[in-house]
């Protein structure tokens, strides 16, 4: 009956508590998700949410959401964000500020790099179990490809392709170099 499902359903869950972080790096930041597994009511409404904190000069590796659109609202700080569509066009390339909202369409690739004050955001995903696929990192798509497929695809030597795979140590975050156009020291 309805009273056994919706009426008593838990509808609230704190997402700010650092102890609940799903991905955490004391230097880079953290990322916390809420979905139908952690808050079952999301299964009814077919939505999910996430909270991200990114420290200065750290970024989230390029990634795409496999099964949802993501609406991202900036709660604090700023970040340089690039979103790329299927044609390889950069459809967003700007510094987003506190109070701003932007959409990352399903399957579109996005990269975020925090500004001087860091970057904090909350995101709403249009699937109860939003799944992300990363383009770099230890668990990324590139890590799962044979080195020689990478070599052939990008015209690299086999050894270069292997070292490319081996050098991807992180999973979710990357550190911006000082020469990065978005780095706070470069003054872009």
């Amino acid at each position, binding site marked *: 009956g309805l009273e056994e499902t919706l009426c008593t359903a838990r509808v609230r869950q704190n997402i700010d508590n650092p102890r609940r972080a799903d991905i955490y790096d004391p230097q880079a930041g953290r990322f916390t998700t809420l979905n139908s597994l952690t808050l079952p009511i999301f299964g009814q409404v077919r939505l999910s949410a996430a909270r991200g904190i990114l420290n200065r000069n750290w*970024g989230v*590796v*390029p990634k*795409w959401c*496999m*099964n*949802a*659109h993501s609406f991202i609202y900036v709660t604090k700080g700023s970040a340089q964000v*690039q*979103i*790329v*569509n*299927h*044609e*390889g*066009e*950069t*459809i967003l*390339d700007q510094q987003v500020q506190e109070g701003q909202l932007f959409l990352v*369409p*399903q*399957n579109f*690739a996005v*990269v975020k*790099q925090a500004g001087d004050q860091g970057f904090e955001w909350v995101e709403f995903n*249009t*699937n109860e179990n939003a799944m*992300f*696929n*990363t*383009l*770099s990192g230890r*668990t990324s*798509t590139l*890590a*799962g*490809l*044979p*080195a*020689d*497929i990478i*070599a*052939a*695809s*990008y*015209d*690299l030597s086999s050894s*270069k392709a*292997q070292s*490319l795979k081996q*050098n*991807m140590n992180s999973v979710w975050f*990357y*550190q*911006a*170099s000082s*020469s*990065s*156009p*978005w780095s706070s020291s470069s003054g872009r």
Partner: protein
Amino acid sequence: QSPNECQFRQINAFEPTLRIQAEGGVTEFWDPYNQQFQCGGAHLYRHIIQPRGLLLPSYTNAPLVAYVQQGQGEFGIVVPGCAETYQSFQQSEQQGGSSFLDRHQKIGSYKQGDIIVFPESAVHWLFNSGNEQTVLIVLQDTSNDANQLDANPLRFFLAGNSQQSQGSSQQGQREQGRKQGQREQGQREQGQHGGKQELMTERLREQLGYNGNILAGFDVQIVKDALNTDMETAQKIVGERSQEDRGHIITVDRDLQLIVPSSSSSSSRSEEQHQTRKQGGGSSN
């Protein structure tokens, strides 16, 4: 869809009408704007991949079901969260140990008559290692619940050239916008004088993502940092250093060292030779 759009009074059979040519093969589309196919909620196309042709790693906005009409080769699907369960070692005689050559997710082989399912948004690639061309009939189910984008059969390539890779992202974007305007102007003019087929093909290539490399949309420095690599490699990855447009299917000149399990004793001799050539060193699953 309008209420009466799918009330069929006649069904027709069609040949593919649009071709996207690449270095190592061609993809032929049945008109994605055909009303009958649009009512079916899915799109079909045919990859024809020449020997040693590699369909570059890409993912799609909807699940695919493919039928191998002809040919044989290898394919891989990279599923997020899955381990790299295929790994190979190189024996080091001096140190008496072994070191990793490579490890990657499970790959499969295909042959004529196979059905292959490629889940939506999962990166996949396909390599024709046989002696004849591979013909793959593919259905892309754009009306599937998994697709929250529009009904176009989009493909997101992780490699290859992109028009935008010619300059910095912002500059490229402005340039692309200008080019787009010129193209549309040109299309209007040329459309009046014929050449409709070529224009439709070019439009299709752009709209569906067959001339794109999504990594080219990112700043090359960001790609370098994110991949923890050098600038030259990053430039190659975003397609900046490549002078020629090889398309979405490229020809691979070198021998690919893919990790493939040994054939069983019931396999044919030719298959065993085929596997050995690809395998190189020792491997384990």
